[in-house]
C-alpha cells in the first residue's frame, strides 16, 4: 500500500483522527507526471469570519524556485500552514503531485510525502544539540521500531558533517540548540531541512535576522538547490528576492489571494504592488 490517500478519508482536526497510516507507511514517490508538484485551488481559510486566505490559486512546478511576497498579513504563512497540514482550509483543494490531497493528510504524512518547512520564527529542538537536531531531521524510516534500533553509519555521519560545514555550525555541534543566536537558529533550521531531503521546500522568511553577507550566502545556497528541489520562498527582503528569483516567477499575495504574478522586474513595476507592498 502506498501513502496515497484513498478517497473519502478524512482528517478530523478535533479528534486528530489522521485517517491513515500513522506514519508507518513510507510513501512512494510523488506523481508529478504533469510537471507541477503543488496545486492550490480556490483555497479559503477563514478565522471566525476573517478570511486570511481568499480563493487562492497557485501552482508550483517541479524544480521551480518560486518567490512569494506580499504585505504583512497577506496570508503567506497561512498558506504554508495549509500546505503542511497545520491549518485546514475552510474550502478548496491542495494537491501534492497529482494524487495527494494535502487537505486530508496529517502533518506527519505530509512531511513523509516530501514537504519540508522552515518556520517564520526559527523552531529547533532547543534541548537537543545541534548535531542531534540534524540527526533527528535526517531522511530515514521514522517509525518507532526502526528508530529504537537506529545507529548512525559513517555515510550518515559524513552527511551531517557536511551540512554542519554548510550552515557553519561546525565546532558548535554539541551545543544545545537553544543557546544559539537567532540567526544561527535560522541556519540550523535550514540545515535540518536539507537533512530531510524533501522534494518541496517551504521557506518562510529564511533571511530574517541575517546579516547582509549571510543573506547573500543563503541566496547562493538556494541558487545551488534550484532544480534539485522545488522551493517556495517567502521574503520581505527585496534584494534577496531579486537575487534568487532571477528570471523565475514571483507571486504577490494580497488579502489572501494573488495580486500579481510575473518576473521580479514586472512585479516591482506593478502599481498595485507598489501601492500595497513596496511603498514609494
Amino acid at each position, binding site marked *: 500500500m502506498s501513502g496515497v490517500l484513498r478517497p473519502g478519508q478524512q482528517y478530523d482536526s*478535533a*479528534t*486528530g483522527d489522521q485517517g491513515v497510516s500513522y506514519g508507518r507507511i513510507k510513501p512512494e514517490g510523488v506523481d508529478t507526471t504533469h510537471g507541477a508538484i503543488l496545486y492550490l485551488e480556490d483555497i479559503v481559510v477563514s*478565522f471566525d469570519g476573517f478570511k486570511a486566505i481568499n480563493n487562492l490559486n497557485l501552482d508550483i512546478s517541479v524544480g521551480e524556485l518560486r518567490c512569494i511576497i506580499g504585505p504583512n498579513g497577506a496570508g503567506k504563512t497561512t498558506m504554508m500552514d495549509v500546505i503542511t497540514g497545520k491549518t485546514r482550509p475552510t474550502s478548496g483543494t491542495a494537491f501534492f503531485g497529482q494524487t495527494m490531497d494535502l487537505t486530508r493528510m496529517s502533518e506527519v504524512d505530509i512531511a513523509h510525502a516530501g514537504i519540508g518547512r522552515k518556520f517564520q520564527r526559527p523552531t529547533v529542538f532547543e534541548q537537543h544539540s545541534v548535531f542531534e537536531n540534524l540527526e533527528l531531521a535526517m531522511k530515514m524510516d521514522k517509525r518507532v521500531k526502526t528508530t529504537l534500533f537506529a545507529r548512525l553509519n559513517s555515510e550518515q555521519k559524513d552527511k551531517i558533517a557536511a551540512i554542519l560545514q554548510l550552515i557553519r555550525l561546525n565546532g558548535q555541534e554539541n551545543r544545545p540548540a537553544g543557546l544559539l543566536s537567532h540567526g544561527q537558529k535560522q541556519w540550523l533550521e535550514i540545515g535540518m531541512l536539507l537533512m530531510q531531503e524533501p522534494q518541496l521546500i517551504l521557506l518562510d522568511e529564511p533571511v530574517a535576522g541575517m546579516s547582509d553577507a549571510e543573506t547573500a550566502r543563503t541566496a547562493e545556497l538556494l541558487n545551488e538547490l534550484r532544480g534539485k528541489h522545488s522551493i517556495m520562498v517567502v521574503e520581505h527582503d527585496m534584494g534577496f528576492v531579486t537575487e534568487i528569483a532571477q528570471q523565475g516567477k514571483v507571486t504577490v499575495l494580497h488579502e489572501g489571494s494573488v495580486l500579481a504574478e510575473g518576473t521580479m522586474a514586472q512585479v516591482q513595476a506593478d502599481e498595485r504592488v507598489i501601492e500595497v507592498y513596496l511603498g514609494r
Partner: protein
Amino acid sequence: MTFRKICASIVLLVFSLGAHAAIDGKLLQALSGDDPDARIVAVNSIAAMGNEEAVEVLTALKNEQLFVKDVAVYMVEGEQAKDLASGKVQKLPDDAEAITINNRLRAALDSALSGLKLFSPDKNTRLVAATALEKEATPEQLPLLNKAYLKENDSEIKSRLQMLIATANLQASDPIVRKAAVKALLDSPNPNLKPVLQKMLTQNPDGSYNETDASIRVEAANTLNAIDGRLARMEFVGNLFYGVSLGSVLLLAALGLAITFGLMGIINMAHGELLMIGAYTTYACQMLFRKFMPGALDAYLLLALPAAFLVSAAVGILLERTVIRWLYGRPLETLLCTWGISLILMQAVRSIFGAQNVEVANPAWMSGGITVLGSLVLSYNRIIIIFFALFVVFAVWLLLNKTRLGLFVRAVTQNRRMADCVGVATGKIDMLTFGLGSGIAGLGGVALSQLGNVGPDLGQNYIVDSFMVVVLGGVGQLAGTVIAAFGLGEVNKFLEPVAGAVMAKIVILVFIIVFIQRRPQGLFALKGRSVE
C-alpha cells in the same frame, strides 16, 4: 396516634385559654417518672388544660428545661426556677435533675403544641402549627380543625387547614364527603397522601377494592396522578437546584485555583489547604464572637468573610514571597513544592486546632430553608452560597478584565519578562495575584464551612475536584471554570438518583476523560496561533 386522644378535650378548652390552674402534682410526677406511657398520658392531660401554662410547661419540657428534685418539678426561667406545683419562684436546687425526653415523647409534645398553637394569636405560629399537622391529619382532628378553620382569617392558613380537613375526610364514611375530599386534594403537594390514595386504589385478594365507590376511585387516581406529576416536577426542580448548589460549591472551591493555577500556572497542591485556612478562620471568628459578643453571634460571618480573605491571602503572599516566586516557569517543581507546603499546613492545623473537626454552626439566618412546591426544601445556606459564588465570580471577572491591575496580571502570567520590560513590577503583581487567588480560596473556605466539616483534611477533599473543574473549563478561562463547575454539578445531580452516588462519581470522571478527548484544551479552548 397520641394526638387523637386529646383533640376533643382541646377543642372544649381552647376557648377558655387563660384560666389559671396549677398543674396537678400527679401529672407532674408521671411526667418526670420512668413509665413512658404514663408520661405521654401526662403530656396529653397537660395539653388538655389548653391554657398558657400548658403551652409554657410543654415547651419547657420539649427544650429540656424542666427539672425534678424529689417530687418537686421546676421550670427554669432565666436565672430562676419555678416550682410548678406551688408556683413559687426560687433558685434551682443544685442537685435537681433535668427531665429528659426521647423522640416518642418529643413527637407527642410537638403534636400537642401544634394543636394548641393553632389558636395562637400569632399568625406565624399558627402557620407553623398547621404545617406541622400535615403529616397526620386524621378524622379525630376534624372538630379541632374545623374550629380552627372557622376562626381563621388568614387565607394561606385557611387553605392549609382546608387541605388538612380534606385529608382527614379521606377516611370519612360518607362517600360524598370522601369524594369531595379526594377532589379537594387535587392541588395538594403533600407526598404523604400517596400511600392513602394508593390504598384506596388497591384491590384486595377477593377482588374488592378498598374504596368501594368506583367514581371515587377515578377521582383518587386523578388526584394521585396530579400529585405524582407535581412530585416529578418537584424532583426535577430539586435536582436542578441541587446541581446549581453543588456547582456553586465546586466553583468556590475552584475559583482561587483558576487564578493561581489557571492564570499563573502554579500547580498549586496547597490550594485545598488555603480553603481549609479560610474555614478555620471562620471557626476562629465564630469563637471570637462567642467569647466577646455572644449576642451578635449570628453576625460572625460578616467578620469571617473579610478575615478569611485576608488570612488566606496573607498566607498565600507569604508562600509566594518565600517559596513560589523562585519557581515561575517551572510548573512541575511547583507541584512538588506546594505538595510539601500542603503537608506542613495540614499538620500545623492539627497541632494548633487538633486533629478533630471543629464545629462551625450556621447562623440562624442560614439555618433551615424555604419550602417550595409543597415539600421541596431549598436550604438557606445553599441559596446564599449560590449567590455568594456568583458575586465572587463577578467581582473577580471585573477585577481581571476591567482594571489595569487585571491587565497587568494577565500580561505577567503570559510573558513575565516582557511585562517587566514594559514597566510592570512583576514581583508585586505576582504577589498580588497569588494573594488574590489565595484570598478567594479563603472565601471558598468560608462557604465550605457552612456546608461540611471543618477539619485538617478539608482541603484534600476538594483539591482533585478543583483541578478537574479548572482543567475542564480550560486553563486560564474564567468563564470556562464557571461553566465547568455548574455543568459538573448538574450532571452529577441528575445522575445521582439514577446511578447512586458512587457510580455517579465514576461516570462523571469518565465523562471528563471523554470530554477532554473532544476538547483537548478544555471547554473554552483558545483557538488559533496564540495558543502555541
